[in-house]
C-alpha cells in the first residue's frame, strides 16, 4: 500500500508542475482531455477491470452527469460543484436499478445489455425536447452560458480545468488503490474468475457487483459533469455514442485491465497519439490517421497482450531480477532468483 502511494505522490508532483514548463493553450487542452479519459477509464475499470464486467454503456452515466450538472447550472443557476455531487449520487442509485437485472446475465449477454441501455438512453434524449421539464436541446445538443468564476466552475485559463481534473483523477486512483488492498478488491477478483466458487466462500456476489457498479457509475457521472463544464457544450451524438463508451474501455484494456495504473497509462499514451495523428494527417489524408491509430492499437495488443502497464512492470522487474542475479554470481553465491 505504501509503495503504491509513493508512485502516486511522484506522479502527482509531476502532473502538478508540468504546466509550469508548457504554456501552450492547445497543449494544456490536450492534457486536460487525456487526464479526463484517464479518469473515465479508471472509473470504468472499477467495474470492467476489477469485477470483470465489461460494461460498454458507460455513456449513460457520463450523460446523466453531464445533463444534470449542465441543466441545473443553466436553468436553475445551481453551482456545478453541487450539480456534480447530485448527479453522482443519482447516477449511482440509478445504476443499481439498471444493473440489477443486467447482472443476472453472464459474459457477452451482460455486455449486450449495457449496450442496449446506452442506445435506449440516447434515443430517448435525442427525440424528446424536454426531460422532466428541462429543455435538453435534444439532438441539437446543450450549450452552456458563460458566467465565469470558481463557483461556476468556469475558468479564464485552461489551467483551472487542468487542476480540477487532475485532482479528480487523484481521487479516482486513491479509491482504486484502497479497493484493491481491501476485502472489496479480493472479493471483486474472486467474482471475476468464478462466481459460484466466490458464492460458496460467503461472497454475496450480487451485493459486491452492485457496490462496484455504484462507485463506477458515480465516478463516471462526475467525469461527465466535468466534461460538459470544460467543453461548455453537450453533444449527445458524441457523448452518448457507442464509440465514446468503447474509447473509454479501450484505454483501460490497452493500458492494462484490472490494474491501478493501466487505464491511466492507456489514456495518457493513446489519447495524445491519436490527437497528434489527427492534427498532422487529418487534413491532408482523410482517414489515414484513424488507420494508423488502429494499426498502433493492434501492434500494442499483439506485443503487450496483458496491457501496456503490466508489460512495463514486467520489464522493470526482469531488469531488477537480472541485477540481483549478477550480484549474487559475482559474490559466488547461488542465484535463487
Amino acid at each position, binding site marked *: 500500500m505504501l509503495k503504491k502511494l509513493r508512485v502516486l505522490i511522484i506522479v502527482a508532483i509531476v502532473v502538478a508542475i508540468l504546466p509550469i514548463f508548457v504554456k501552450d493553450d492547445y497543449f494544456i487542452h490536450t492534457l486536460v482531455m487525456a487526464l479526463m479519459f484517464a479518469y473515465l477509464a479508471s472509473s470504468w475499470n472499477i467495474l470492467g477491470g476489477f469485477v470483470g464486467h465489461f460494461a460498454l454503456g458507460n455513456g449513460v452515466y457520463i450523460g446523466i452527469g453531464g445533463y444534470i450538472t449542465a441543466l441545473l447550472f443553466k436553468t436553475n443557476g445551481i453551482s456545478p460543484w453541487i450539480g456534480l455531487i447530485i448527479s453522482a449520487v443519482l447516477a449511482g442509485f440509478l445504476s443499481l436499478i439498471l444493473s440489477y437485472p443486467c447482472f443476472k446475465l453472464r459474459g457477452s449477454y451482460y455486455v449486450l445489455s449495457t449496450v442496449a441501455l446506452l442506445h435506449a438512453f440516447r434515443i430517448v434524449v435525442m427525440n424528446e425536447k424536454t426531460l422532466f421539464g428541462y429543455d435538453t436541446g435534444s439532438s441539437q445538443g446543450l450549450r452552456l452560458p458563460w458566467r465565469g468564476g470558481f463557483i461556476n466552475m468556469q475558468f479564464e485559463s485552461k489551467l483551472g480545468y487542468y487542476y480540477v481534473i487532475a485532482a479528480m483523477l487523484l481521487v479516482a486512483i486513491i479509491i482504486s488503490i484502497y479497493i484493491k*488492498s*481491501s*476485502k472489496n478488491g*479480493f*472479493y471483486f*477478483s*474472486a467474482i*471475476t*474468475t*468464478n462466481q*459460484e*466458487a*466466490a*458464492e*460458496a*466462500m*460467503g*461472497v*454475496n*456476489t450480487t451485493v459486491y457487483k452492485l457496490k462496484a457498479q455504484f462507485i463506477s457509475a458515480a465516478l463516471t457521472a462526475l467525469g461527465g459533469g466535468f466534461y460538459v463544464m470544460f467543453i461548455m457544450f453537450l453533444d449527445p451524438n458524441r457523448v452518448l455514442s457507442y464509440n465514446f463508451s468503447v474509447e473509454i474501455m479501450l484505454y483501460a484494456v490497452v493500458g492494462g485491465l*484490472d490494474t491501478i495504473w493501466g487505464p491511466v497509462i492507456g489514456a495518457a499514451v493513446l489519447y495524445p497519439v491519436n490527437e497528434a495523428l489527427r492534427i498532422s494527417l487529418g487534413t491532408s489524408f482523410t482517414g489515414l490517421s484513424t488507420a494508423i491509430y488502429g494499426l498502433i492499437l493492434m501492434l500494442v495488443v499483439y506485443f503487450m497482450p496483458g496491457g501496456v502497464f503490466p508489460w512495463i512492470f514486467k520489464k522493470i522487474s526482469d531488469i531488477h531480477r537480472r541485477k540481483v542475479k549478477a550480484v549474487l554470481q559475482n559474490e559466488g553465491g547461488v542465484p535463487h532468483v
Partner: protein
Amino acid sequence: MSEILLETRNVTKRFGGLIANEDINIHVNKGEVLGIIGANGAGKTTLFSMLAGALPVTSGEILFKGIPIQNMKSSRVCKLGIGRTFQIVQPFTNLSVLDNVIVGAFLRHPKYADALRAAEQVLRFTGLYDIRDVPGDSLTLTQKKRMELAKAIATEPDILLLDEVTAGVNPTEHPVFMKLVTDIRDNGITVVIIEHVMRVIMNISDRMYVLNQGKLIAEGLPADIAKNPQVIKSYFGEKRNVENK
C-alpha cells in the same frame, strides 16, 4: 446421543421428470466424519449442492442448527457456517494461493491484516505455506485439491462438505488427504464427505449413508455398510456372491 448439527427432512429434488433425490432424511452429528457413498448418478452431488445452498430443493426442509436453510443463497449458507469444496476444483486463477485463501478468511476477518494472519495459519495446516505466492492456476491437481480445502477451511465453518477430495489425486497421496480430513475433524469441524475411493471413505468415516438412484438405501457404521447386501447389489449388481469374495 450427540448434538445434531445438520438434518434434512423429506428432501426431494426433481430436474423436470428426473428425480435426483427422493425423500432424503439424513442427519449429521456434531464432531463426526459422515461419509456419503453411491454409484455414479446416485444423487450425491445434488444432495450436496442443496445442503450448500447452490441448488434450491423441490420439496422438504434442510435444518442447520435448527434454522431452515433450504433455498437460501449459498453465500448466506456459508456465513451461517457451512463450507464446501467442489468436485471439479475452482481456483481463482488470477490470484496467488495465499490470496485465494484470504478471500475465504475475509468472511470472518474483515480487516486485511487479520485475514492475512488467519489465511497463513490455514496454509500451514494444509501444507501450502511454502507455495503461497504461486498463482492459483499453476498448481498441480493435488495442490489445487489442497487449496480447495484451504479455501473452505478459511471461512471457518462448523461443518465442511467435501465433494470427492481425492478424485484425480494420485493413490499414493490418498493417505495424506485422509490424514488431513481427520485433522480437520480433530480441529472441531464436522465433516461430510462424498468419496468414490472406498479405501479412503471406509477408513475415515465415523458413520455412512448410501444413496442409490436418488434414494437412501442404507445407514450405519462403515463395517456394517460394507456387509450390507443391498449396498453390494447397488455397486456390483445382482449376481455377485459376497461370501466368495
